């Protein structure tokens, strides 16, 4: 059993992050209600990526865990991005 002391996250940190997540949600609703064409998709995804980052770092404790877990998470997202790029290279240039 590990005897190392765990970092206890104060409650207020979670409240602040929740506030930020809710603000970002309404901001993404606001920005997508404006007709920006293909920029709308980019804006909505950008907000979703920021929200994902906050959830991973604070709610899922990547900030407080050993760095290798975060590196593995990054690798999985990188793999996903690579697969998306390869798929679209196929569809865009066929």
């Amino acid at each position, binding site marked *: 059993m590990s005897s190392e002391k765990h970092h206890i996250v104060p409650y207020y940190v979670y409240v602040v992050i929740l506030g930020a997540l809710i603000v970002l949600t309404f901001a993404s609703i606001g920005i997508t209600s404006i007709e920006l064409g293909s920029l709308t998709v980019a804006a*909505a995804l950008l907000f979703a990526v920021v929200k994902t980052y906050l959830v991973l770092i604070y709610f899922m404790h990547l900030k407080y865990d050993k760095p290798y877990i975060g590196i593995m998470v990054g690798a999985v997202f990188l793999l996903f991005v690579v697969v998306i790029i390869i798929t679209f290279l196929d569809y865009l240039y066929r």
Partner: protein
Amino acid sequence: MENTHQAHHLPYDAEASKIGMWLFIFTELLLFGGMFIVYSVYRYLNPEAFHLAGEELNTFIGAVNTVILLVSSMTIAMSTSAIQKNDIRLTNILLGITLILAIVFLVNKYFEWGSKFAHGIYPGSQEMLSTMSQGEILFFGLYFVMTGLHALHILVGIALITWTLIELKQKKIHGEKYDLLENSGLYWHLVDLIWIFLFPLFYLIH
């Protein structure tokens, strides 16, 4: 019994337990990732139809469910702080709130899907086949499969949180050993993460 004797000496490694959960979460991310790729390809091929079909979805109910999941994510994250402070009562309350919010999410989903069904929008519907374009049918097919699979994950999350609450009552989870609580939390955040992408892709982008 030999079993209880053994259980007492079972090696407990919180870090190993967490890694196991993360590896499982990676497989989940790639499962949904694959579906997001299918969605993006079909969206690229049928931009007009996806635009039209997306307007059928109720942004309000989607936004309410987003807030519900975000709040429930916060309460289960707080419960890991509470258990580390050995505050069993607060852990119980926070997990209870998470459980209730999870159920409210599913109730909303039930009404949302119900109103779609009432309008003849469901997989295999004859009305869809005769009135909608191929792209719109694809949109709703993806909508039902992806939000359905997500709802299935909500059900699994409810089961996990219930199991955690039972072990908490049996005092198997306490300030020194709370890997089940931590892993249930990670799973619940995953469910939240997936919804963070489902919501804009289906409800917001018209």
